[in-house]
């Protein structure tokens, strides 16, 4: 019983150390804020998702047409809108790009501290 209690106490102490590790490693950091995406990056991420979705839909349509799963009629009806969607997504990203280049990461306020 004594051995078990000793082991239990050691376990508890080890866990406290593991939990306190971030504070022990950096007792007085320059920055202690979460490294999060700012609004610009989040908007860009959404546009990247839209772009990837459109390109993936185009690829799938091409392959399905090649295999014969999608008929010529359906292919002709869909290829135009899908290409326009992909072009719009790419243009939106290109519009974002100059704005992003004008701002350095520090100016955008994104913390550069340790990662989570």
């Amino acid at each position: 019983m004594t051995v078990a209690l000793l082991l239990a106490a050691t376990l508890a102490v080890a866990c406290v150390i593991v939990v306190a590790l971030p504070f022990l490693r950096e007792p007085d950091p320059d920055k202690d804020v979460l490294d999060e995406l700012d609004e610009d990056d989040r908007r860009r991420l959404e546009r990247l998702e839209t772009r990837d979705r459109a390109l993936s839909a185009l690829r799938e349509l091409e392959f399905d047409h090649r295999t014969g799963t999608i008929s010529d009629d359906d292919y002709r009806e869909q290829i135009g809108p899908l290409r326009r969607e992909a072009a719009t997504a790419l243009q939106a990203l290109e519009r974002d790009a100059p704005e992003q280049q004008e701002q350095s990461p520090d100016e955008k306020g994104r913390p550069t501290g340790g990662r989570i």
Partner: protein
Amino acid sequence: MPELGRAALVVTLGLSTYALVAGALAAHLGRRRLAQSAQNALIAAFFTTLIASGVLLAALVRHDFSFTYVARTTSEALPTGYTISAFWGGQEGSLLLWLLILTGFGAAAVRLNRSWARDLIVWVVPIFGAVAVFFSFLVVAVASPFATQAAPPDGAGMTPSLQNPYMLVHPPMLYLGYVGLTVPFAFALGALLSGRLDERWLIATRRWTLFAWTALGIGQLLGAHWAYVEVGWGGYYAWDPVENAALMPWLAATAFLHSVMIQEKRGMLRIWNVLLVILAFSLSLFGTFLTRSGVVNSIHSFTQSSIGPWFLAFIGVTVAMSLALVFWRLPRLRSPTKLESPISREAAFLYNNLLLLALCLAILWGVVYPMLSEAIRGEAVVLGRSYYDFFLRAFGLPLLLLMGIGPLIAWRRASLRSLLTTFRWPTFVALATGGVLLALGAGSSVPGLIAYTFSAFVGSTIVMEFARGTRARKALGAASWPGAFSSLMARNRRRYGGYVVHASIVLLAIGVAGSSAFDSVAEAKLTQGESLAIGGYTLVYRSLAERQSANATEIRATLGIRRGADDLGTLETGKNAYTIEQQVSNEVGIRSDKLTGEDLFVIAEQIDPDGSVYFRVFVKPLVNLIWLAGLVFLLGSVITLWPDRREQRRLVARASEVGLPATR
């Protein structure tokens, strides 16, 4: 060392509480070190639970009957394999297993995604923490596996029906499935709390959901096979509440796995997907509640306990808080895209979702109705097999058909003319199959005939898709046909792995229809030398013998089997009398025909002192396709789960464009 086990669980409770509170504070206040600390607590909780599990396992293996749990679930004579399976054979141990898998999955999911989805993970940690607090509280304060007593000379032993090799795998698989559904739930709630409703929570959890769904599916099939060979009533699925408890979250997860494709491809159904994840997790909690609370009478429910109210309260809080979060985030969850046509792939997937959900809710109503009727009228009214069979046919058969239609329709909209062209051959194959089967006499069961016809339709669409895809890859420059086929699979594992899973469902449907709609049964009391005929077989009762195994007395009747003029050898069936447990179990005799998939299934219902035996005999056509379906299902799931390097590269490129680390 029960003290060490108890202490480890108390530390787990402390760590989980810290992960919940510190994690929530860190996310709310935006504190980096506090968030790291909460993550460390969640990871440490896994190791402390592992220590507690090690203590219980050691006590089981050493037959330490000073542990009340060990004394209640095992005995000295119990073989080592079953002694280990007692870990999850009783309530306290199975709750500990839940906690072990939960903290393990939580720690792994956080570690794997902490760079790539770091702003999401800080909100995911407190959700895992909250679920872990509940389960660690249960094993610390309500149902501790480390309760002790003065050690009796021997334990009470294990319920005989649990002394089966399937029990070594079936419960852990189900638990991997139940608990695995916590991962998408935690990420969905993390996304709602943080407002990061981009695709990352879906990407981070896709494989976890698939893994949990696969484990739940395989776990159920193993359970069905266990019921078939061990319980000895002649079937594999009885619509028992505990069986339904595993089926419901699987159906909800199936719906999610389909509708998530619509969100990925078209950006639609974002609210629906979050609701499905919440439903699947809540049903997994409800399943554990049904199995472990003793609230229902079931062949699988081995316990009566006081954890029921705790579970109900936790399920209530989980559902209420999750729905409140969805309601709070409704404006941001609304999709910018709309359904363009009722004849499109997304519409077919939506119909599939509605049918899956309708089936799931019909089963849920069947499960809760006896409880509600008992609470209101003081008498439990059980909805019988006909209730479930009706809904299985009403929703399951259209689902089967949709499985063939959905993948072959174009996204957005499809013209009727192209539909007619696409489905010309599958329809011909289906109608021809139906016609031939009708001519062969399969019309005795209309649902069975429809199931076969639809299966032929779906099967032909799958074959067609593989053939067309392979031909296209060959035309695109693959050196050989096998090369074209493997290139096809490698380039779109999700799609073609999905088709393999669909093929397994077709096999399952054929197996279920064959064995339930076209089976035959005969029963008779025979003395030695007498015979019984059924479905072309003749069974001759030859002898009765008694032998002693490690923990039971085995009585076996030997029957000679003939089919026409062919001698098919002998079959043994009988009963086991377990000495310590003071229980008797049916031990069925099964002869499988590997060519036709048919089983001859014999139960010795009653063995009289004069040596005469009352036999019940079934012939179950195609039943072995159900177990084959399990293997095909596993193959399809593995193909789908296999890492896709091209997709990984695309995701990494996308993440790096917004300054996220190029690793997940």
